[in-house]
């Protein structure tokens, strides 16, 4: 097989950290090549160098036999490199055709472009209407927009950064069919993912990065998911285990909870009903944007609902705000670490004060008890192994995984009766994810009720006792997590109820 892209000794350093250290590997023509690594392993930096967003300090690249040093994305696109971003680079208030035109060098007139979009979408089975507003599209449809944008430029190399993290299993299957079709036409694909099973089924070669260096290459189909994960982490992994417990008293009940979304592109909640018992972990799956954020707001008390819609241990709390709910034992950790769960520019101590001030009595008569709050913060850091130079460091100075451990730990240390967490391990490396899941399991086995909202099905299957799916603002009937198959879940995500 001939080589399309050769990387030779690419190095890029930032103040205090070497993001890429002499990285070398090749991608063949028509090959699907996986790039594996934990958060902070240097995958994004490497991809940005190939796409021209970052210039390497040293080392060289060769593309289709020619020296390749793109100074900006435009140059990379002209050479035939296209990229689908992890957080979609789309503009919600613009329509599909406008979004696609923005990613092209010389877009044709809008009516010709619309025709081209329809042709490409028919050819690859990526159904999309060019006149729709991107803000109204589902995550899967948005990804199609990104892919079509790339395909219209006949790329030789397609880079995909975590493409399946927001898709339903059926959408993933459709995507893989598209990618195989492209491969058959001779397009090379650089595929970045932390979903190891996907890489094993899809990719022919894999390069593993750790700490900015290439630590191994392998043929994924000959490895197990566990051996791949251990290659990434560089250590043996422990799978979290739950001690068998009997489910106890009902703690949290939702009855016909409805909530109109304030976000113009949000989803309103409709008649959400479920019960959470002591010692139970209820997993709520579903594709992002189906009401997860709204459910989180309704449970945390940021949005008030009908008083009778939510009850905690028999007390109706729908009209109570976050602080009274916390006092009664309902604690929540929202999805967005920076900006919602934690204030980026405030220190860890200040951040722990924000949720624990009343419940942990970290002050009196409006004054903060410095000693108590520092001790509380230290307890979180110690119990949850948060790696930080100290408690005075700002929240934004922590890596994603460490901040997530802090945000989840801050609530668990407060000994909740019911704990609600949205995306507990989003964008967190494997080791940190395992320790967060372990903490959730321990919390439940100590008699608390835990509600986990997540898009990671493997995670939900691993921790949940019962499982339900949010689709278009409605919640399916919770059922035993042991009994459902991935196919069934996929159908539920699409909105159809299973018998």
């Amino acid at each position, binding site marked *: 097989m001939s080589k399309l892209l050769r990387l030779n000794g690419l190095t890029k350093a930032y103040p205090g950290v070497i993001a890429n250290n002499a990285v070398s590997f090749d991608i063949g023509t028509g090959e699907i090549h996986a790039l594996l690594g934990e958060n902070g392993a240097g995958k994004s*930096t490497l991809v*940005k160098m190939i796409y*021209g*967003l*970052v210039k390497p300090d040293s080392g060289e690249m060769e593309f289709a036999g020619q020296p390749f040093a793109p100074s*900006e*994305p*435009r140059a990379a*696109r002209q050479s035939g490199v296209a990229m689908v*971003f992890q957080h*979609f*680079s*789309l*503009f*919600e*208030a*613009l329509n599909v055709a*406008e979004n696609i*035109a*923005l*990613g092209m060098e010389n*877009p044709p007139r809008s009516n010709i472009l619309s025709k081209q979009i329809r042709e490409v979408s028919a050819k690859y089975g990526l159904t999309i209407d060019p006149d729709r507003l991107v803000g109204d599209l589902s995550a899967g449809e948005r990804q199609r927009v990104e892919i079509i944008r790339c395909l219209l430029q006949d790329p030789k190399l397609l880079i995909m950064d975590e493409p399946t993290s927001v898709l339903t299993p059926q959408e993933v299957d459709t995507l893989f069919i598209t990618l195989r079709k492209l491969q058959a036409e001779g397009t090379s694909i650089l595929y970045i993912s932390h979903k190891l099973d996907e890489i094993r089924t899809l990719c022919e070669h894999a390069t593993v990065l750790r700490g900015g260096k290439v630590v191994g290459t392998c043929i994924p189909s000959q490895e197990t998911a566990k051996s791949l994960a251990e290659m990434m982490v560089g250590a043996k992994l422990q799978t979290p285990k739950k001690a068998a417990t009997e489910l106890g008293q009902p703690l949290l009940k939702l009855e016909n909870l409805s909530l109109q979304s*304030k976000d*113009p592109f949000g989803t309103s909640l409709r008649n959400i009903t479920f019960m959470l018992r002591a010692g139970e972990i209820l997993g709520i799956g579903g594709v992002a944007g189906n009401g997860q954020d709204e459910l989180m707001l309704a449970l945390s008390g940021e949005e008030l609902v009908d008083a009778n819609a939510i009850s905690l241990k028999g007390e109706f709390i729908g009209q109570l705000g976050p602080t009274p709910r916390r006092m009664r034992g309902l604690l929540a950790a929202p999805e967005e670490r920076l900006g919602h769960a934690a204030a980026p520019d405030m220190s860890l101590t200040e951040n722990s004060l924000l949720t624990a001030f009343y419940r942990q009595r970290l002050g009196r008569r409006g004054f903060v008890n410095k000693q108590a709050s520092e001790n509380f913060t230290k307890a979180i850091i110690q119990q949850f192994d948060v790696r930080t130079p100290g408690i005075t460091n700002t929240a934004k100075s922590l890596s994603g995984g460490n901040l997530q451990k802090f945000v989840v730990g801050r609530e668990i240390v407060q000994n909740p009766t019911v704990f609600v967490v949205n995306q507990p391990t989003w964008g967190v490396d494997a080791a940190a994810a395992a320790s967060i899941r372990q903490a959730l399991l321990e919390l439940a086995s100590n008699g608390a009720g835990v509600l986990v909202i997540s898009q990671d099905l493997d995670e939900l299957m691993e921790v949940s006792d019962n499982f339900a799916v949010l689709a278009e603002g409605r919640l399916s009937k919770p059922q035993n997590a042991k009994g459902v198959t991935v196919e069934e879940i996929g159908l539920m995500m699409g909105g159809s109820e299973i018998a």
Partner: protein
Amino acid sequence: MDFSSISIVSLLATLMVAATPILLAAIGELVTEKSGVLNLGVEGMMIFGAICGFIAAVETGSPLIGFIAAAAGAAALSLLFAILTQYLLANQVASGLALTLFGLGLAALLGHKYTGIKPPSSPKLDLPILSDLPVIGPILFNHDYMIYFSILLVAVVWYFLKFTRKGLVLRAVGENHDAAHALGYKVIRIRVLAIMFGGACAGMGGAYLSLIRVPQWTEGMTAGAGWIALAIVVFASWKPWRIILGAYLFGGVTILQLNLQAVGVDIPVSYLSMAPYLVTIIVLVIMSADRKRASLNAPASLGRIFHASN
């Protein structure tokens, strides 16, 4: 009281004159905000434009050179704001307020010697037949050239934003600067240009006050017109044609209260002078009552600082 002395024809004709300074400033601010930058310094840029235009027109005797100088001067002032917010990443609200205070002070200093002078008068449109038509003539075809220019400018901005690729890129930058950067667009360069366009427009709006509407130089003569222009951008929900509607509505209320004062309506003058501002506030409240619709049109990155993080 004698309402018959209020002539509808002259009312409509003066309405356009009263509205034009705000119209010019607002269309410039619209472009700036569409690129994602909130520049609260419109008032300061307007008054700086007013004095730059006045000095240039008096010294050269040409109103045209006055307007060009006003646009250039205010654009230069807005460049200060652009450097602060785009390169030094200063807070846009604070920088904008500072720009207003700075512009007011600098204009007063420069204009010290020019108080009480009359500027050269601007030529008016004079079309045979059309300008002499009764009613329609004085309302539509007997104004100075800047009024027609301001309407043309709105049309050009509308076309630019809606149909051109550069307009699309500008909107994209205002919508999601991180995504625009990832696609390789020069967020900062585009924003600096948008800020300078906003400055030039505000400057011409100011010069229209000092050269045509008043026409004279007095300290603080913009008297809040810049703030009204900012409000009108929101009122128009960032749509160019609605800027005309908003500006003319405000101009209409202003002229009406002047006329009512002249005929001696039995309401204290202060209430009448308040009226245009009060109407603006009421309209803004009504407009933003439906938060969903308002936020649909607002540029999503408005007022947010962009820092390329690689």
